[in-house]
């Protein structure tokens, strides 16, 4: 049995995220997690469409993906002692995601203090050169009691 604390933390974080009821409802999959970086993707789903004329996914579903991914980046940061909650999140929708494409969010916890974690995130469809949306957020740092 090998003990790799970081790998362990990542495994737990992955299991925890994939157990979240809303993450399951959106079909989220953790692609990569560890060291304050998380990559989570979600399949195209007609139930999440925001405009039936174009079949484009609603921004709200992209927000949910980026919020989850931001929280995941915080909990897997080496200095994060436990859970987290969003304090604020700013999301810029740069363009419509291509209908049919999987959406992938990549979030990075770039700074963490005793009480606050700062996160940047980006969401991409099949064309990662041109992001669909970007987010900036502040998250709480919860200590296990």
């Amino acid at each position, binding site marked *: 049995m090998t003990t790799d604390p970081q790998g362990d933390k990542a495994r737990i974080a992955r299991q925890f995220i994939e157990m979240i009821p809303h993450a399951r409802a959106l079909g989220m999959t953790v692609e990569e997690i560890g060291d304050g970086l998380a990559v989570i993707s979600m399949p195209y789903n007609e139930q999440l469409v925001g405009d039936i004329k174009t079949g484009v996914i609603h*921004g709200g579903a992209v927000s949910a993906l980026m919020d989850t991914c931001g929280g995941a980046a915080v909990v897997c940061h080496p200095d994060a002692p436990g859970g987290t909650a969003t304090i604020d999140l700013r999301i810029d929708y740069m363009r419509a995601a291509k209908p049919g494409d999987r959406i992938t969010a990549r979030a990075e916890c770039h700074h963490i203090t005793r009480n606050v974690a700062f996160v940047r995130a980006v969401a991409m469809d099949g064309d990662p050169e041109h992001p669909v949306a970007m987010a900036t957020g502040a998250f709480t740092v919860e200590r296990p009691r």
Partner: protein
Amino acid sequence: MSRKHPEPMQAVKQRRDAALRALVEGVPYIQFLGVSVDRRGDELTALLPFDDKLIGNPMLPAIHGGVTAAFLEVTAQIEVSWAMLWDDLERGAIDAETLTPASLPRMPKTIDLTVDYLRSGLPRDAYARARVTRSGRRYATVFVEAWQDNRERPIAQATVHFLMPRREAAAAPASNG
């Protein structure tokens, strides 16, 4: 076609409710979240009934922050679309009877939103109301607030910016008289 006599109340209600229905039922994602909209005159209140699939933290349990953000955005979007439709609807330029999700005019698009999470969303129904702070030819700014049991204790608020659709030179009223 000035209206000398006030319209029968039932006709007014039917028209407004039909337009609102086209707005809300035409968006699959709004149906997915389970959001419905209550109308009193021109004032709208969005309702998000609690459902297990909305949970983001199973330990507390609490509503997913992404759901809260989406609920705020959807409420703001319905409000700004409703405000845009209202005048055309009331002067008869849009015929609400034949309005379907597919025949709706183009709707405002979200540019960005900033959400403040104020309290954790409990496993209860949530409500939201939005106010169009400023609506211009190209952009609109909307403030929106969500609460649960107590209106004075909001769970989240957001400012949302929209890109307004290009409007054709004031569509002429359907000239049937």
